[in-house]
């Protein structure tokens, strides 16, 4: 496998995230998603509880060992060289297994089938489109904008109002985050920071930065 640190990753700095939903709405709007499909979500834990409230933005973490791709019965996932995990909607049958395998609830299912049956899965593409012709109309229609091919940052991170959401190679993101944490004088936290390297190995969950 190529250098793990050169893969593109998201990281949300919970000390910065204020639940402004800019990432969510930017994503929905840029990709013209149906209402109810949240490729990216913002969740607040312990809402209103003094000293405990935390907000965080989550989407597909583009895992190196993507569990979704391991369980897909039709094998519709593929992982790009830069680490972006994508899938083929033509192949996808909307069974939901990827959701069960995903720790983050990234896969979304439009209810467009018979009696509300799940349609083809939809998830964060890191704004990199899909297997169709890059930047074609059909790609935009099926998978949303392909900003990566244009050298742009994914729209969620571009729109983040507090720069909580970071995107880049694991190396860059952890470097950036570590600088922030050290400036905060909470060096203990730097150790806890993790980037989702291997989804289910408990050891590696602690992360790359150790």
């Amino acid at each position, binding site marked *: 496998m190529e250098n793990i640190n050169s893969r593109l990753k998201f990281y949300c700095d919970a000390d910065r995230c204020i639940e402004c939903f800019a990432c969510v709405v930017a994503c929905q709007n840029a990709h013209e998603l149906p*209402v*109810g499909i*949240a490729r990216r*979500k913002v*969740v*607040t*834990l312990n809402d209103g509880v003094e000293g405990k409230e935390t907000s*965080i933005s*989550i989407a597909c973490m583009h895992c190196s060992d993507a*569990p979704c791709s*391991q*369980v*897909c*019965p*039709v*094998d*519709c996932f593929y992982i790009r060289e830069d680490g972006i995990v994508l899938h*083929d909607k*033509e*192949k*996808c*049958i*909307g*069974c*939901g*297994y990827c*959701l*069960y*395998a*995903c*720790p*983050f*609830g990234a896969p*979304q*299912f439009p*209810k467009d*089938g*018979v*009696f*509300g*049956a*799940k349609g*083809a899965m939809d998830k964060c593409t890191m704004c990199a489109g899909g297997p169709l012709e890059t930047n074609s109309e059909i790609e935009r229609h099926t998978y949303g904008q392909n900003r990566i091919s244009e050298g742009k940052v994914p729209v969620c991170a571009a729109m983040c109002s507090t720069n909580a959401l970071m995107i880049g190679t694991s190396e860059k993101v952890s470097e950036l985050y570590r600088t922030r944490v050290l400036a905060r004088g909470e060096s203990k936290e730097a150790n806890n920071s993790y980037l989702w390297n291997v*989804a*289910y190995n*408990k050891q590696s969950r602690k992360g790359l930065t150790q």
Partner: protein
Amino acid sequence: MKKYRVLLSSLLLSMTSLYAISTGTYDDPLYGTAMLNAIPKYFAFGEVFTYLQREWFWKGFLIALFLVPVAGSIHYMIIGPKVFSHDGKKIFAFGLFMRIMHNLAALSFLVLVPTGFVMAFGDFFGGGTFVRVCKNLHGIATPVFAITVLPMIIAWIRDMIFNMDDVKWMMIVGGYLSKEKKPIPAGKFNAGQKAWFWIAMPGGILMILTGALMFFLNINLSPVATLFGVSQIDLLRISAIIHNVLGMVVATFFMVHVYMAAIAIKGAIHSMITGYKEEEEVAILHSSWYRKLKEEGKV
């Protein structure tokens, strides 16, 4: 009247499963806070599901797929089918209502089982439209099956209780390993049928429930989730595991049942069409029931 009440309630039951509830995105019962809270517990069911689905389920289904046809072929070639006289007297076994129920269930199974296999080996078929259609058929066939469950349970549960005959039946594997036509200890249903009943009915209910959960995905199931003390995503993972494992078992038993009815005992299938069984067949394969009918003077 009672029958129709049962039928009506079954219909209503299956109708509720068709009602999809839309949910806001603000705090989705599945995707919202609960999902985030479930991340630390991912290793419990998430990892197990991923591991099973990656390593074992497809092997299980492969075995299930070939076990019965292979075993059946061997049985057919070595021992061969049992043929009973179709010219003798008939014994009335199943009323019209129950025949309809049974055959609806049979029909749904003929859809459910093959489409289930198609999904399990979706990559073999290359995914896409064909597998998606199968998935939808799998979903549509479910309510059909759901309608039949209650009537079948109510009608047959008394006959399905195991007794000493069944132990004896088990000892001789229902006499299927010999070509002899020797009376075999069994009531209206033999131990094999009873086993099938007990797998297909409670198992079927479980399959319906777990399947419905997976079908509707993010309807609010927090009461159920709380009941089991897990998050909704874990409930779904558990459902997927149960559905797969049970699926293998049910599919295997279904194929056995089909083999028995259509091949191993020539013409046995007619009893579910006309309602009448051959007297000879009953005398041999359901000897205890035959004796009882005789005592009651019904033959």
